[in-house]
């Protein structure tokens, strides 16, 4: 039964959760306020009503618990989808994610596994209070055994989340909350997943490669439009799965364009852009006609809302970087 619905990213997450819970009774959803309240952003709206209290559970306010529950449930054959209310509160899960979820399969040589999803809204741009706007995806991307997945469109949020839930290993699924309600598009709720571990070429182009993910995809696409107006053709890549990184798609693009700008809203130092740049330096250096540039958040504390726009990269900064790269012959 495939229906096409016009949904925003939040609605797409909700659709995917419903689809996953319908098709597989091992899928259960839990977290803080995900039940009666449907989640503070309403990502889990209606799930409790549809699937009942045995499959949609409000937990005590305890993030280490939420991740630990997921590990225990996953080892027991459930497919837990746990919500962390905001990424700023995800750090209490690190012990469970790094020391346990990511390595349970390795530690037991496959006897126990951890097919869990840890969902969290992340990133800035909605004028949220302190600790509600950070973008610390590279913390997780550094951890062997995890997957880190970030959608940037409603259709991908649907398809990638379905794939994440079906994946036999732990996935950290980060939802750019700035995009939750920003754009809608028709999403076919037919249960088709979008493959993990693959970058998506959002726009084909020949002069420069722009690589980004999450909310920055939209700034990047806007920058590509502006560059296009000046006759510069940008290939825009949406990383989608940060870990493991599909370097092949990026290298292929760079081999044709010879120019690369990486855009992310996280702080620059040891941000995931460094990994992308290093991969290109290792395997694509001689394809480059210009230095690789990064357009990122500053290496500062994420400011409170008044200075948020000074922190977050925007299309203008991306265009400027692209022009600098284009200035090399």
């Amino acid at each position, binding site marked *: 039964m495939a229906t096409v619905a016009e949904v925003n990213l939040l609605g797409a997450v909700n659709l995917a959760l419903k689809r996953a819970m319908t098709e597989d009774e091992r899928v259960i959803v839990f977290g803080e306020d995900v039940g009666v309240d449907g989640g503070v952003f309403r990502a889990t709206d209606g799930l409790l009503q549809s699937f009942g209290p045995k499959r949609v559970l409000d937990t*005590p306010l305890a993030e280490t*618990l939420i991740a*630990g*529950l997921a590990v*225990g449930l996953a080892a*027991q054959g459930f497919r837990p989808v746990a919500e962390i209310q905001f990424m700023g509160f995800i750090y209490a899960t690190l*012990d469970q994610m790094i020391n346990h979820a990511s390595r349970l*399969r390795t530690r037991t040589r496959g006897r126990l596994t951890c097919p869990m999803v840890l969902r969290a809204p992340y990133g800035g741009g909605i004028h949220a209070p302190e600790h509600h706007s950070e973008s610390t995806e590279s913390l997780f991307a550094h951890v062997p055994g995890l997957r880190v997945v970030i959608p940037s469109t409603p259709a991908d949020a649907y398809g990638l989340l379905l794939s994440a839930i079906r994946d036999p290993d732990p996935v950290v699924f980060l939802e750019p909350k700035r995009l939750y309600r920003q754009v809608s598009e028709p999403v076919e709720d037919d249960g088709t997943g979008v493959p993990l571990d693959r970058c998506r070429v959002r726009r084909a182009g020949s002069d420069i490669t722009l690589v980004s993910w999450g909310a920055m995809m939209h700034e990047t696409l806007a920058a590509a439009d502006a560059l296009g107006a000046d006759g510069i053709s940008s290939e825009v890549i949406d990383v989608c799965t940060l870990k493991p990184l599909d370097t092949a798609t990026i290298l292929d693009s760079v081999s044709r364009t010879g120019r690369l700008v990486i855009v992310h809203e996280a702080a620059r130092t040891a941000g995931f852009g460094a990994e992308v740049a290093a991969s290109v330096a290792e395997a694509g250096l001689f394809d480059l006609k210009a230095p690789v540039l990064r357009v990122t958040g500053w290496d500062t504390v994420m400011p409170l809302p008044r200075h948020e726009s000074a922190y977050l990269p925007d299309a203008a900064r991306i265009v400027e970087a692209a022009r600098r790269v284009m200035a090399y012959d």
Partner: protein
Amino acid sequence: MASAADLDIHHTAYLGPDGEPLQALPESLSAPESLVALYRDMVFARLFDTRAIALQRTGRLGTYASLLGQEAVGVGVGHAMRAEDVLLPSFREHAVQLKRGVQAEEIYRYWGGDERGSDFAGPKEDFPVCITVGGHTPQAAGVALAFKLRGEPRVAVCVMGDGATSKGDFYEGLNAAGVWQLPFVCVVTNNQWAISTPRREQTAAETLAQKAIAVGIEGEQVDGNDVVAVAAVVGSALAQARAGRPALVECLTYRLGDHTTVDDASRYREDAEVSAAWQRDPVARLRLYLTNQAGWNKDREQALLAECEQAIERAVEAYLETPPEPVGSLFDFLYERLPEPLAAQRKALLGGDRG
């Protein structure tokens, strides 16, 4: 002034340090054969431990955490559990693992640096040891939640040290067990030390058992050097938990050895304290009881030791003869299917192109 809560922590003991019964033994544990079986498991665990240390000292095992002095806790808990329950042990709980059917050579393998040691042939759903102190408490709540959601009469049992009770994840796991009335039992092996930190410096709480009260679950204390008390009290805690009433059992014992084979406990505790603790040795205690009450004698003791030593010898041989695991295994269990970007790394590891 009215009282807002009635807080009471029971302490249970059946055998005194001299092996004399303090009260009638519970019926299920009073038969000499049952007690001899428990005694055998304690002797086996101790021999396993002695041998592990010897292997480490001769360079054939890695750093190892000795269970010396805590045999009654592990054997008692293992005795009380059913096969279908799930154990989440901390790193010192070899005795309960052995009792659960984990093979001695598997445990040697793990401490010998080989992940295959946690791929138990026996209790398939038991967790590998938890090295991050207390980290397995919320996981045990997850396992217990799985049982509850499926309506299975099974219990998740996590076992940890006194140090773990100072941690937030310990509290979070326990708290969830209370909120959801999970089939969950937390056993605290209070061996009085967390490396060099004595029990009194972990918490001002009078008992560790009372930490259960804060989360609304049952908390009890037992003499952890009395295997009968451990088996009986954990046994009833398990029965309660199976009916949806989680519990915490604090077992008072003593770590007679160093924290691990790389520790030197003489840096932080007096010999006199350790000698005094030997007076409460759980193995000697049960032997005295059996000698006085059940006709245990030198011949039977010798026969038992010989049988256990042979079994340990076979385990050591099996361990030492384990063929090495191919090095590609570094990658082979990372994900169900190795992602393509990692395939190149695996090839580099195996193929000489290490760039």
